[in-house]
Each structure stands twice: as structure tokens, then as C-alpha cells.
């Protein structure tokens, strides 16, 4: 990925995560309505509190992406978060949008992985010798 396209993707995703976090903060219970009943039943805390936690996570991911710090980690957490969102919210009219954001976070993560981590993934056994 070219440097310019990487930064456009990074800032675009940062704005998306930050804005979603703010909107969830505004109406946590309403956003909790997107959860499937089986998923809501698994929550150990009230749905409003769980959604506030989600908002904080979204904002933290957005801040890291915006400040260009630990981009790979933020993108990885963002991707895992989106997979969980897709599982717990089921297939709806906006699922396709979440899939697009998921693909973007994976692309960002793949492009920003630290070199030593890539080396470890490629040849884990060599590290032991």
C-alpha cells in the first residue's frame, strides 16, 4: 500500500471509530438494541454499561489511529471488535457496511505490522535456536 493511501485509510477509519464511539455515548441503550437477544442475555452487566464500554473502546481505537500510534494494534483490536459486532448483531441492512470497515481494518493491520513481528510469524522456530 502506498504511503498516501495508507494514511487516507488510517485517518478515515479513525474518524469512523471516533464518531461511532461518540454516537454510542449519546444513546447507549438505543445502540444496545442492535444486539441479538441471545447475545444480550450473555452480558454480565446492564446493556447500557456494556455499550458505554464499547464506546470507550471505539474512541480508544480512533485516537490511536488518528495519532498514528500503535496502528497495527489499534487495527487488530478494531478488526476483532468488528467480527464480534457482526456475530452479536446478526445479518441486518447495515451488515455490508460493517464488512467494509472490517476489510479496511484488516488491510491497515496487514500494512502496519512491525517487521520483527512479521519475522516471528514467518519463522517462529528460528527464534528458538
Amino acid at each position, binding site marked *: 500500500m502506498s504511503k498516501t493511501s495508507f494514511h487516507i485509510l488510517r*485517518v478515515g477509519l*479513525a*474518524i469512523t471509530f*471516533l*464518531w461511532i464511539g*461518540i454516537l454510542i*455515548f*449519546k444513546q447507549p441503550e438505543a445502540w444496545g438494541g442492535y444486539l441479538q437477544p441471545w447475545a444480550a442475555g450473555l452480558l454480565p452487566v446492564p446493556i447500557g454499561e456494556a455499550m458505554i464500554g464499547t464506546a470507550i473502546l471505539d474512541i480508544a481505537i480512533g485516537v490511536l489511529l*488518528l495519532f*498514528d500510534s500503535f496502528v497495527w494494534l489499534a487495527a487488530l483490536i478494531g478488526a476483532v471488535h468488528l467480527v464480534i459486532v457482526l456475530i452479536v448483531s446478526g445479518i441486518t441492512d447495515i451488515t455490508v457496511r460493517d464488512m467494509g470497515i472490517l476489510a479496511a481494518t484488516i488491510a491497515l493491520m496487514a500494512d502496519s505490522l512491525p517487521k520483527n513481528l512479521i519475522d516471528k510469524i514467518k519463522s517462529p522456530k528460528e527464534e528458538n535456536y
Partner: protein
Amino acid sequence: MTSLALLFTLSAIGISETVYLIRKRIVSEKPVCPIGSGCEIVLASKYNKIFIIPNDILGLLAYIIISIIAAFLVIEVAPIYFWGLLIKILISIASIMSFIFTYLQWRVIRAWCFWCLMSAFTIWLMGIIILASAVI
């Protein structure tokens, strides 16, 4: 809500831009100048700071404060009137500062910096959004 979303988006773009300039300045690297070649001249000029604070840090602080206030207004954190007034005052001051810095590039330094102009246009666009939202 739409105007706040736009203000937040523009301030986030401003944050990413100023963070880039600050990082380049800290490691003493030349920033990429996508259009023109006057970035170095402008960024290294004697007008690159106000008193002892570099302009990029002032810009970053302004953008962060604007984004936080926009978020407060969306979430409806009280006192809403105060936040609404504060964001208008901040954007007005930032717009005037951007006019001064653009004039300095045009007439005094006689070189154009892509990032400085982008920041100025970002701030002016925020001002237009504030004005438009007051009219509509």
C-alpha cells in the same frame, strides 16, 4: 447534528495533519510537500511560532479542543450554550490567525506551504459551516 459531524471530521483531519508536522519537526525531517516546494521555507521561517510555542502545537491543541467540544455538543453535555459559544469563539480566532499566516506566506515569506494552506482551508471551512448552520 450534521454540522457537528462535519466539524468533528474536519478537526480530526486537522489533528492528523498537525501530528504529522510535529513528528517531522521532532525528528528534524523534511515533511513531504505534495504541491509546491515552499513547505521547508515556511515551516523554518521566524513566523513558525507564537512567543515560544510552535504553530503546529497550537494548531493541534485547537483541533483537539474543537473536536472535544463538538463531541460534547453531540452527547449534549451541559452547559450546551457555553460549549456552543466556545466553539464559535475558537473557530473565529483560528480563522483570523489563519488569515494572518496566509498573508505572511503570500507577502512576507513569499513561499507557499501545502500543509499550512490545508490547515487554513480546514479552519475556514469550519467557519463557513458555523455560519451556514446559523443561517439554515
